[in-house]
């Protein structure tokens, strides 16, 4: 089996699994309980919080656990809008965000906010000048993802942060770093709010985190027993949080090594563009994330190619798994070059992949693509 769908989710890491199983045996108590059993669990949660905080150069008090990336994105956007609506009515995002971001902005639009959606160029980058000119006195929030989940373009977060703050120092900057977390170096100095997720780095599903810079107000969407300083009440997902801490530590220890490893895998897979005609790279082939390679195969429907590869036990994605269920949505890849969306396949890598696998995929593509091209819609 070759699993090239690591941007959708990852296999749980063996060490993570071990620590979760150990934890399930001993850490059953409620971390809010006043007795020592509860306190022991609380300490483990705080340890995970510190690991995650340090991975993005943040203070542990600025990290809040959530049920995952979607909740963190929803909360950041809706929570900031409701906390600062007296200051202004304008919010800014891009057309290439994950649905958990773009749908939150659609919701804000319904509630009467003016939403600006920045376009991207062929390589997937926003125009910084357009961003600058879009920001005014009434702009309360800008949300721009770090690494794009479908084609891996990396926005210039530092520059973006500076542009925003120069233009309007009260404007809040949120960035969805789900695909960047533990793969690219994130510096929380250049964001007010950051979204992180556990299951993209071999932790359990159902856990994520938000970084909220000290002093920034985000209205909570949940109400209850005061956990996470009342910001995200509900009994803590102990095992999820512990798994995220362990995974984060493991990934950060080898962040450069992993980066170089997947870069080799991506390069090996890129050879397909020389092997067969009509293969286009979506996004920035030179400076995009090495963890993601998005290709469009002319005259081959993405989903059909996906199923053909599946027969060879090669697992990939068409666009993001989250939007493949929503048929009516315009494919994100179409915002780069219109028409590429229907034919695109996303390959996404893990440090556990190797060049040999990429070569096997190249061979499988060399077999499948010409076969499928014999049968094009007419």
């Amino acid at each position: 089996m070759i699993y090239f769908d690591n941007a959708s989710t990852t296999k749980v890491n063996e060490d993570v699994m071990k620590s979760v199983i150990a934890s399930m045996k001993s850490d059953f108590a409620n971390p809010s309980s006043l007795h020592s059993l509860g306190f022991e669990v609380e300490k483990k949660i705080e340890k995970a919080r510190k690991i995650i905080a340090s991975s993005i150069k943040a203070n542990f008090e600025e990290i809040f656990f959530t049920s995952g990336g979607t909740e963190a994105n929803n909360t950041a956007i809706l929570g900031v809008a409701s906390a600062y609506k007296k200051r202004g009515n304008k919010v800014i995002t891009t057309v290439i965000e994950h649905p958990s971001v773009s749908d939150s902005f659609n919701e804000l639009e319904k509630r009467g906010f003016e939403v600006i959606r920045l376009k991207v160029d062929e390589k997937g980058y926003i125009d910084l000048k357009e961003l600058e000119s879009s920001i005014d006195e009434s702009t309360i929030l800008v949300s721009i993802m770090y690494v794009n989940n479908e084609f891996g373009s990396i926005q210039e977060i530092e520059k973006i942060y500076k542009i925003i703050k120069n233009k309007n120092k009260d404007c809040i900057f949120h960035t969805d770093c789900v695909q960047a977390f533990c793969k690219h170096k994130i510096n929380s100095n250049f964001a007010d709010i950051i979204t992180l997720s556990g299951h993209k780095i071999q932790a359990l599903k159902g856990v994520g985190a938000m970084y909220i810079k000290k002093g920034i107000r985000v209205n909570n969407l949940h109400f209850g027993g005061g956990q996470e300083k009342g910001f995200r009440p509900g009994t803590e997902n102990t095992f999820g949080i512990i798994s995220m801490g362990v995974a984060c530590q493991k990934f950060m220890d080898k962040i450069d090594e992993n980066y170089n490893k997947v870069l080799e895998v991506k390069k090996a897979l890129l050879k397909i563009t020389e092997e067969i005609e009509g293969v286009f790279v979506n996004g920035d082939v030179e400076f995009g994330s090495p963890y993601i390679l998005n290709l469009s195969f002319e005259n081959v429907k993405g989903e059909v190619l996906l199923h053909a590869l599946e027969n060879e036990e090669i697992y990939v994605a068409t666009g993001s798994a989250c939007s493949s269920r929503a048929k009516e949505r315009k494919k994100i890849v179409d915002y780069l070059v219109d028409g590429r969306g229907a034919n695109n396949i996303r390959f996404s890598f893990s440090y556990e992949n190797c060049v040999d696998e990429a070569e096997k995929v190249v061979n499988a593509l060399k077999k499948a693509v010409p076969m499928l091209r014999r049968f094009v819609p007419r």
Partner: protein
Amino acid sequence: MRNVLLVKYGEIAMRGKNRYLIENKLIWTIIKRLEKYSGYKVYKEQGRLLVVNEEGEFDYETVIPIVTKILGVVAVCPGVEFEDQSIESLRKHALAHFKEQYPDGNVSFKVVARRSDKRYPMTSNEIGADVGGYILHNMENLKVDVHNPDVTLMVELRNNAYVYSKLIKAYGGLPYGSSGKATVLLSGGIDSPVAAFLMAKRGVEIEAIYFDSPPYTSERAKQKVLDIAEKIAEYTGALKLYVVPFTDVQLKIYENTPPEKMTILLKRAMLKTAQKVAENNKSMGLVTGDSIGQVASQTMEAIRAIDSAAQMPVFRPLCAMDKQEIVDVSVKIGTYDISIRPYEDCCTVFVAKHPETKPKKSIIEAIEKKIDGLDELIDLSIENVKIYEF
């Protein structure tokens, strides 16, 4: 006195010598579906069936949804059965039933009586008036309305006496399996499951066939069909589904056919394949979900050009139904929500942008004849069939 469920069935009663066979089929079906709940027995009672629980409480909430799904059942009525047919006994049981079902009163009602033993000292009308008067006298807030009552309380004198006031409609039709067998071409769409259901409702035992085209169709599209088959089996009791790998046949046709004629030839190949499966399983016909004029391949011309591929009758129970009528049935039988899952069931690769709406049968047949090795590919696909049983 005991709680019972009266089961009414329709057309069976008219069927002369076959009547007992068909009645028995229905009885066995009910017994079988209630098998896993202990104590339930079924008796014949003068043109009705009677479900009773001889070991414990009658659990109407469980039993009614099961029995109303059995094809051939017209309606069911929860009620009570008792032996003493004296007018005092009828009054007492009718009042008790009424109080239990409508404790607040506040309804309009009438009582309708029936007696099969005409020697009974009172006429049906007299019984109705007497029992109605007694209830009215003993409960508050009641109104009599003989023309348009909220509640019609039935008092029936057969071998035993019965009182009931609710009639829950079922699907009617004939008991499943009492009218021979047919093979349904099932896709993941809205129409074909409805066609399958309607044939089953007329007593036809069905088996289903699905054409799988990986990698052009996905595992999830196939799962849709499996889920639909499982849903249909709730009515039929069981269902056999043949999944035929069809990609090679489709590609062969694709390469040898002008695009606008592709769908017609493909449908002919499907009929041919289905017919071979049907002959093996002793079906007497094929069933499709075609509705006249719905799409290009469902015009009268197209149907004629497709039909000659089969040497057995092809039933199209939806042919004269509007889309909305078909949707209504699919919602009612519970296949709609499965059918509208967004996975493609027939890959768009094989559907031309501008298909022909008035194909000529002779031309289609001539093209088909020229496709070398098509029959062999069909035979091969049947050899590789996978069978699922629900």
